[in-house]
């Protein structure tokens, strides 16, 4: 209940504040309404937070409960354990992303330029942050470590990633620096899939996101396989 309905409430608040209260003050962006512009960013936020939290909090909780030794003792291959954690995270993030979209559809409609790009981008985002969440869960000694990454890394990157404003509107150096924010590329892809607008070439964004996901997947699998921070 909490996992699914909390994002629904958050999104309704965003729609209420940005969509209804401020929309008259915010002009259309590249031919789409502000709500149409904002929704892909909100879906990305849902995907990111849930894909990250699921494996990271699961592993840290196991460490607290003294159940990591169980994980190291069961006769499952490393890739089986890896797939179990990642699939659970991806499924959870897709459920939340889907609920976010369904909520939005009560208030806004989309031209759907490319369903393929929407699905591929969503999967890569969910995978990347699942891998990151798994890695952080293995590395972290306590929940504070997990929260540190979420509060000081993921959240700023998300909010500076163009959820609520076009990245191109940022001035000079800041605007250039924003292109190094991976979430900018994630939102760019999803926004293109829903609305057709792209601030950065979608091929560049796909390449960057694909490369980062592959890299994160490899290092998180290696960390699990070697029992890094899990075995004494």
């Amino acid at each position: 209940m909490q996992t699914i309905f909390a994002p629904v409430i958050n999104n309704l608040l965003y729609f209420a504040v940005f969509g209804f209260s401020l929309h008259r003050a915010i002009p259309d962006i590249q031919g789409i309404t502000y709500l149409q512009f904002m929704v892909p960013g909100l879906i990305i936020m849902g995907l990111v937070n849930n894909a990250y939290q699921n494996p990271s909090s699961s592993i840290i909780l196991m460490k607290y409960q003294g159940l990591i030794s169980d994980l190291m003792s069961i006769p499952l291959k490393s890739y089986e354990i890896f797939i179990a954690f990642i699939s659970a995270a991806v499924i959870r993030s897709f459920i939340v992303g889907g609920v976010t979209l369904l909520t939005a559809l009560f208030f806004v409609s989309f031209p759907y330029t490319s369903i393929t790009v929407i699905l591929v981008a969503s999967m890569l985002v969910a995978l990347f942050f699942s891998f990151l969440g798994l890695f952080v869960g293995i590395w972290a000694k306590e929940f504070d470590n997990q929260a540190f990454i979420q509060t000081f890394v993921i959240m700023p990157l998300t909010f500076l990633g163009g959820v609520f404003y076009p990245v191109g509107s940022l001035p000079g150096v800041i605007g250039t620096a924003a292109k190094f924010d991976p979430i900018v590329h994630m939102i760019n892809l999803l926004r293109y899939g829903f609305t057709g607008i792209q601030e950065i070439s979608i091929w560049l964004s796909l390449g960057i996101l694909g490369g980062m996901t592959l890299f994160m997947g490899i290092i998180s699998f290696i960390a699990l396989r070697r029992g890094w921070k899990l075995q004494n």
Partner: protein
Amino acid sequence: MSHAISIKNLHKIYDKKGTHALKDFSLEINQGEFFALLGPNGGGKSTLINIIAGPTKKTSGTIKICGLDIDTHREETKSIIGVVPQEVSFDSFFNVNEVLTFCSGYYGLKKNQLYIDEILEKLNLHDKKYANTRALSGGMKRRLLIAKALVHKPKVLILDEPTAGVDVELRHNLWTYMRELNKEGLTILLTTHYLEEAESLCKRTAIINKGQIVALDETKKLIKSLGNYKEMTLNFKDKIGKIPAHLEPFKAKKISDYDISLTFEPKDLNKVLNALKDLNPIDIELQSQDLEDVFIQLTYRNNG
């Protein structure tokens, strides 16, 4: 037939502290054996078990379970051992039946409910089948740990101090159950601080201290390794003054105003009984040396 557990030249050094927890440790346990591993706290028992089970990595050496190397046959060896850890910990979201069902799943057993019910019955947990693990008493949690270790019918069962903190009745019930399992062919490796447990259950015993085996033999031979003697405590009605001279050959010691202890070999029993004829003690207690004496001699005294 390969040994149930074969450990050769095992070393474990904990990197951060440089603690050499296991030093060139070698041990072989036969299939179907009930084996005790004793040792003081920090001696290396739990490190050894955690290396066999998986949570701890060895620094060097080889370990084989029923002939399979744990390095090259990781999953196969894990599937044939069951481990009852020292620490009691469960996922607090599940009930007893769910814990055992999920555990069965890890070993590829999809329909294991009949066997789960059988184990719960034998461990007197059937009434708590649907109780959350948080609602269990300490003794019940210990029994659930044993159930978890048995749910996949392992060939080797490793118990790390399974009766710690358990009441006398439950301890004896668990001993009875372990004897039954061992009679059915299950190899059992038991670590314990209760020396009485090793004496009554295990055919062979090893004593580990500072990461090395300091004694390994059949339990009865180990007990007699310090020599075969009896200790007799005599209780008198009246206060004892000086110890009678004819008791001196039996290493007589005054242990209180009313008690004297004698130490002698069994072959001298008749001499001792003759010496007691005119003394009229009101009570006599006779003890044989036990594993505790061996244990103390080999561990605590060596530790200084």
